[in-house]
């Protein structure tokens, strides 16, 4: 396959594979108005994101800023009610400084619902014309950032879909891409074998500490990162689920440990620590799969590999989701939602290497503009909630 990706060049030098206009509400009270603005652009690349809370949170502010300056985003409209705590000046300044068209509409000062919806639609129409003029430049596989998560896991995930995703990661890392795996709550029991793969002993200690933090956090909550459907699908314990999830990291050395919003400084394999620091404050680390996908995107992921056994149908705002179905029965039931049938491995029709190569080739073709199943179906799920993080330590990133 030829690798002529054509990216959208942004002022920070990063390149996007999509060129979306994003409408972001800054509190739940502005959600409806923002969604009405987006509803006026059926069939065009206008996407809704937002933060529901009225109270301030540094994590949410940073993730929102990273999302709105993501290379797949061309312009941003913020919709504020007016009295919420979100720092709209800070976030809009960051977008403005990135050279993107940006506007903030405050409902309380814009004449209410109908008038704000009209003003918003007028602005977005103009923004669509502006983002169409963004420079297109050649882009290599080495400039891609790719995330992977698994959701709706079952006993097939760790045998077919996750090893195939891991094989694709090995291929992409070999070509210079940055790949991110995550959910330290699903690395429980894997910390020792994972620490041995770190490029430095100091990083190995950081990886081990991140998993131990996850173990303590979930212990306090009283639940593991485990849903009822995991058990129905044959998984009996968190460590069984963890071992299956861990293999989607592939066999490459681990170059770094990042937290949501940290962008990998160069190619290689990175673990994302998604479990909050400090005492348990706001509940579960990630309340559903899309919360994990959003964090991958905040760390620069151009697209995300999503391995499912039970059968998830979600996509995401901002970055395309490639759905890899591990379970052959689920694939037959939900083939319209699945991009890759890794169930072939379970049934002995194809090898892990063959499916891994298919995933790698699909990543390139989606980067070149091909729509994933969830994109074509219109899935643009998004969720962002409260968390608390400390900055990563000095041993976490590789030298550039």
């Amino acid at each position, binding site marked *: 396959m030829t690798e002529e990706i054509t990216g959208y060049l942004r002022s920070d030098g990063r390149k996007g594979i999509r060129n979306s206009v994003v409408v972001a509400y800054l509190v739940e009270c502005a959600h409806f108005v923002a969604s009405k603005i987006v509803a006026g652009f059926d069939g065009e690349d206008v996407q809704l994101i937002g933060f529901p809370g009225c109270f301030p949170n540094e994590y949410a502010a940073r993730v929102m800023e990273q999302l709105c300056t993501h290379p797949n985003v061309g312009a941003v409209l913020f919709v504020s009610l007016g009295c919420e705590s979100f720092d709209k000046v800070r976030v809009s300044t960051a977008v403005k400084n990135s050279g993107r068209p940006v506007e903030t509409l405050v409902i309380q000062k814009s004449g209410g619902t109908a008038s704000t919806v009209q003003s918003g639609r007028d602005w977005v129409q103009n923004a669509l014309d502006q983002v169409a003029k963004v420079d297109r430049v050649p882009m290599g596989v080495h400039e891609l950032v790719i995330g992977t998560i698994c959701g709706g896991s*079952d*006993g*097939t995930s*760790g*045998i077919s879909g996750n090893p195939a995703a891991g094989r694709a990661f090995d291929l992409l890392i070999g070509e210079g891409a940055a790949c991110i795996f995550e959910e330290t709550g699903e690395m*429980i*029991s894997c910390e020792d074998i994972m620490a041995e793969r770190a490029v430095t002993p100091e990083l190995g200690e950081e990886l081990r500490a991140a998993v131990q933090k996850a*173990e303590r956090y*979930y*212990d306090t909550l*009283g*639940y*593991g990162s*485990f*849903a*009822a459907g995991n*058990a*129905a*699908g*044959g998984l*009996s*314990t*968190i*460590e*069984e689920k963890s*071992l299956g999830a861990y293999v989607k990291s592939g066999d490459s050395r681990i170059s770094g440990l990042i937290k949501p919003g940290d962008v990998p400084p160069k190619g290689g394999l990175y673990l994302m620590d998604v479990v909050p620091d400090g005492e348990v404050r706001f509940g579960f680390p990630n309340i559903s799969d899309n919360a994990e996908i959003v964090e991958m995107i905040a760390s620069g992921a151009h697209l995300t590999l999503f391995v499912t*056994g039970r059968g998830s149908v979600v996509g995401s705002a901002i970055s395309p989701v490639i759905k890899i179905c591990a*379970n*052959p*029965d689920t694939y037959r*039931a939900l083939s319209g939602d699945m991009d890759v049938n890794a169930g072939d491995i*379970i*049934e*002995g029709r194809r090898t892990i290497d063959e499916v891994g190569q298919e995933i790698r080739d699909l990543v390139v073709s989606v980067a070149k503009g091909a729509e994933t199943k969830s994109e074509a179906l219109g899935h643009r799920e998004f969720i962002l909630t409260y968390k608390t993080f400390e900055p990563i330590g000095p041993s976490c990133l590789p030298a550039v």
Partner: protein
Amino acid sequence: MSAPFLHLHPNDNVLVARSTAPEGAKVVLEGGPFVLTQPIPLAHKIAYRDIAAGERILKYGMPIGIATQDIPAGAHVHIHNIRSAYTATYALDDANGLNQGETK
């Protein structure tokens, strides 16, 4: 397709069903041929040999839990007879995987 059950690692004391296996299906365990006494859904596990209460369950060659009772060779290995060494498993009534057809 080859064998209906996978032995993922030589040290494993469980096998994994690579398709839903009906009651009466034949499977080769460590001690020889065995006839399933209950259906086993896709990706669920059975004991490859007799497992004693307190023994570690090995899959992928790695520990995935601890037997909470004696498990005879060929029996379904799941949340009713093994537990996590870390956090308890949350499950609903369909955890045996056999009534999932009703919800499809």
